[in-house]
Structure formats: structure tokens, C-alpha cells
């Protein structure tokens, strides 16, 4: 084998390895479908997605995941609303305001926060946030939407802050200089020039943060309370989709309808996060800043 052929072979081997990520995505879809799709021989897609009752162990059982979807959406939206201002402002702080030494310190803070295992945050929510909520607001239980959203926000903030910071950092210096030259103050420059220029990156950050929150399992499993019903107040318990899967898979008999319904719930979760990620990818590519005009 001459050198050229050898190089071609090596290249092909590397290429096939690069395809592994796609292959894994494919395997995930195949496994979820293989174990989850048989459910729809007995339960219609409409009853599954929009059914109001999740009673998987009753006789006859009922497999409507609408309350679980609502639970997921509520905690995710609330968590995102908390995480967006904190995440973006922290990104601004690190990229534009902090002195060099504190910049590194806060970058590490965000990295360590992102590195905290979710089970630890869930545990913290159970033993600290829950009793506090219960006492302060005189509630029957502190394991509820507010608690889950607060902890989820803490998990979404590092994602939002670190990606936003990259986007803000990438804004060309000329933009800021032009703004200062026009007499704008620092905060006017940041709010009217820097953040708008970084908006596509910040949007990507927010979407990925939401995607992280909706897929997060241990936190909602431990602190959301677990009631599979449509909540009436923010202090009600909910049972988001990941919590339902994690809590029930252990007791669902192998290949029973319940087991299949949990895989089908996993399919719903998978496609929601897939959509979030595709949209984030689209935005970050479509509005990518390519160079800046110079003299």
C-alpha cells in the first residue's frame, strides 16, 4: 500500500468515527421507538398526548400525559423567566464589567455551578428550599412548582451565562468604540449596541438553557412533588415528564403498557429537546456575525 492509499484509508476510518454521534442519535430513536411504539396499538396518539388522566397502575389504566406535559412546560417557563435576567446580566458582568481577576473567578463559579450534580441540587431543594417555602408561605408541602423552578433556574443559568458571554465577547470592538464616540455611556452602549449585536448568540443560549431545564430529571423528580394533575396555583405539586419516567420505570413490569407508555413519554421528551436544539442551531448559524466593516 503506497502512502497515498494509506492516507485515504486513515481518512476514511476517521470519517466513520466522526459519524458515531449521528449513529448514537439514530440508536436512541430506534430504541425509544422499539420499546415505546407498541403502546399505540392500544392507546391512540390523541388519548396519549391529550388525555387528562395519568393512572398507569389503575384497573383499567389510563395513559394520558397531558398533566405531565403541562407540568414540564410550567416549571420550564418559570425557570427560564428567572434564569434569563440573571444569566444575561452575569454574562454582561463577566464580559464587560468585571476586572480581569474577578472575571476568571466568576467564570469558574459558573463552571462549578454547571458541574454540580443534579441529584445534589435536588437534595438541596428537598432539605433547604422546601421547608423554607413551607414555613414562609404556610403551605401543605414545599415540594412544588416554585421550588422546582428555582432549582431548575440555577441549572439553566450556567448554560445561558456561558454561551451569552461568548456571544457578547465576540461583538467587534469597533461597534463599542463607535458608540462611545457618539457620546453614549457604558450602559447605553451595552444595552443598545452590544446586546443587540449579540442577540442571536443570546437567543441560542436561552433556548439551550430551556432545553436543559425541560430535560432535567433529578431536580423535578425530587422537588416538584409528583402530583399528576393540572396545577391551579404556583404552589401546587406537579409531575413533569422526566420525573414520571424516572420514578415509575423501576416498578413498571417489563414490556407492559405502563413500560411502553414511559418509553413513549421519553419519545415526546426527546423530540421536544431535539426541536429546541435544531432551532438553536438554526439561529446561531443564520445570524452569525461574519467579520466587521473596517477601513
Amino acid at each position, binding site marked *: 500500500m503506497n502512502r497515498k492509499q494509506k492516507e485515504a484509508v486513515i481518512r476514511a476510518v476517521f470519517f466513520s468515527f466522526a459519524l458515531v454521534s449521528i449513529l448514537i*442519535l439514530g440508536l436512541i430513536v430506534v430504541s425509544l421507538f422499539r420499546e415505546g411504539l407498541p403502546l399505540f396499538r392500544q392507546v391512540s396518539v390523541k388519548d396519549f398526548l391529550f388525555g387528562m388522566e395519568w393512572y398507569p397502575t389503575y384497573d383499567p389504566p389510563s395513559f394520558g400525559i397531558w398533566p405531565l406535559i403541562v407540568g414540564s412546560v410550567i416549571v420550564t417557563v418559570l425557570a427560564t423567566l428567572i434564569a434569563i435576567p440573571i444569566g444575561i446580566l452575569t454574562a*454582561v458582568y463577566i464580559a464587560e464589567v468585571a476586572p480581569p481577576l474577578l472575571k476568571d473567578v466568576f467564570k469558574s463559579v459558573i463552571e462549578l455551578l454547571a458541574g454540580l450534580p443534579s441529584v445534589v441540587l435536588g437534595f438541596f431543594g428537598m432539605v433547604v428550599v422546601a421547608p423554607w417555602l413551607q414555613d414562609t408561605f404556610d403551605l401543605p408541602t414545599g415540594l412544588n412548582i416554585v421550588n422546582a423552578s428555582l432549582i431548575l433556574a440555577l441549572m439553566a443559568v450556567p448554560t445561558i451565562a456561558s454561551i451569552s458571554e461568548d456571544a457578547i465577547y465576540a461583538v467587534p470592538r469597533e461597534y463599542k468604540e463607535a458608540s462611545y464616540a457618539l457620546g453614549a455611556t457604558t450602559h447605553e452602549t451595552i444595552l443598545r449596541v452590544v446586546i443587540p449585536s449579540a442577540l442571536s448568540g443570546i437567543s441560542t443560549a436561552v433556548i439551550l438553557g430551556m432545553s436543559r431545564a425541560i430535560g432535567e430529571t433529578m431536580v423535578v423528580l425530587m422537588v416538584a412533588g409528583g402530583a399528576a394533575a393540572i396545577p391551579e396555583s404556583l404552589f401546587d405539586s406537579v409531575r413533569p415528564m422526566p420525573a414520571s419516567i424516572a420514578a415509575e420505570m423501576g416498578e413498571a413490569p417489563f414490556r407492559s403498557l405502563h413500560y411502553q407508555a414511559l418509553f413513549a413519554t421519553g419519545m415526546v421528551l426527546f423530540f421536544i429537546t431535539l426541536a429546541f436544539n435544531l432551532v438553536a442551531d438554526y439561529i446561531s448559524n443564520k445570524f452569525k456575525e461574519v467579520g466587521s466593516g473596517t477601513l
Partner: protein
Amino acid sequence: MTTTAIRYRYIKQTVFFGLVRLSAFILALALGGILAYIIVHGISALSWEFVTQPPREAMTKGGIMPAIVGTFYLTVGAIAVGLPLGIVSAVYLTEYARQGPVIRVIRIGINCLAGVPSVVFGLFGLGFFVVMLKFGSSILAGSLTLGFLILPTIIGASEEALKSVPQTFREASLALGVSKWQTILRIVLPTALPGILTGSILGLGRAAGETAPIMFTAAAFFTAKLPTSVFDEVMALPYHIYVLATAGTNIEETRPLQYGTVLVLILLVLGIDLVAILIRATIRRRKKW
């Protein structure tokens, strides 16, 4: 401009910077508060017995040694799966690939894989490794699941490290008549190796702390004996915390054990992360090109 307008701008500036500093401060406080709380409550449970003894009396007493061992095996297994796959993928993407639709699809695939929820990885591991490939709930199934979970992290870190190798290094090697493959193997990879390793250590920390992916693929509620083969179930620190905190025989009474286990997990994971962060800072400072 009138004085009031100037004063108004000044107030706005002050308020804005106040909010910006406040946000960063809240985050630091949250991290510090959580760590301090866990350390204060967990430190009294820590002892040599705690980390070297198995649990006793229906997990209300004793230590957590089997869970530490289990997490060690799972994490090492995950790195053994994720590291080679990740480095080779990253080498292809940075050294061989030319811009085009195929690369675009691979990149989207990696991004989407990074976004797959951990519980879905758990279902995948159950459906594919445990059921379809008949590995059963085992170290093997759990390691493979975790390895695939951290693959995007490792690819990302490796790509960044490879990209930071100056182009002139490659050109100098190629100019001497060295083939592309030899250049990658002898010049590019060794230069990028510290960066690749630090990034991978972060993946290691993530693998050690994940719970949902191992719940159905590897983790045992309780087993006093240590694993003897890759087809054995193991206890794991994150799952042990979950079990003690939610399903133990006496949740309130075992709180000290719970705090102790959380502290051990945090020391392990954040210790790993901190080492990575420090190594990276040192590399950046030492870099001469």
C-alpha cells in the same frame, strides 16, 4: 444637555451596573451557600469508616464504600468509551473535514446529542444495552450509556484544543515531507494533549455525578458485595443519595448519612472539575506560541 438629563443618565448607569453586579453576586452566593451548607452538615458524617465500610442495618448505618467503588468503575468505563471516540471524531472535524453538507450534518448531530435529556439516555441504555443487547443492568451497560452521554463534551473540548495548535506547526511538519497522518500523530496530538485531557476531565466529573442515565442501566438499590465482572450491578453515589433521600426506611434518621454522601460526591465531582480548571489556567499561562 440639562443637568437633570445628565443626572438621570447617571442614575440609570448606576442602577444598571448595580443589577449586573447583583446577578453575578447572586450566583456566587448560591454556589457558596450550597457548598457551605453541605460541608457544614456533612463533615460530621465523614470518617474513615464511612468511606471504607458497606452500609449496615437496611442502610440506616455504616458507610458508602460500595457506592464509591461503583461510581469509580462507571466513571472509568465512561471515559474508556467516550475518550477514544471523542478524540478521533474531533481530529476528523478539525484536521480532515472540509466545509460542506456532510460536516454540517455531523455538527448538528453532535449538538443534538449534547441536548438529549439524561433520562432519555437512561431509556436508551435500558432499551438498547440492557434489553436488546442483553447486557442486563450492569457496569457495562451503565458505562456505555454514560460514555455516549459525555461524548459531545469530549468532542467539544478536543476540537478546541486541536484548533489552538498553531497552523505553522502543521506546515513546518508537512514541509519536511512528513505525511498528514504522521503530522497529526507526532505533532498535532501531542501539542493538543493537555487541552484535550483537561476538557475530558470535565466530562469525567459529569459522568460521576449523573443519576438518571444509570438508574435503569447499572445502579443497584443495595448490594454489599463488590462487583467481580462488568456484568454486575453496582451501587453508585448519586443514586445512593436519591435512594436515601426519597425511599430509605427512615428518611429523617438517615439525614447525616445523606449529607455525608452528598459531601463525598461533591468533593469528588468538584474536585475533578477544579483540577481541570487549574490545569487549564496553568497551560494558558505557560503557552509560548
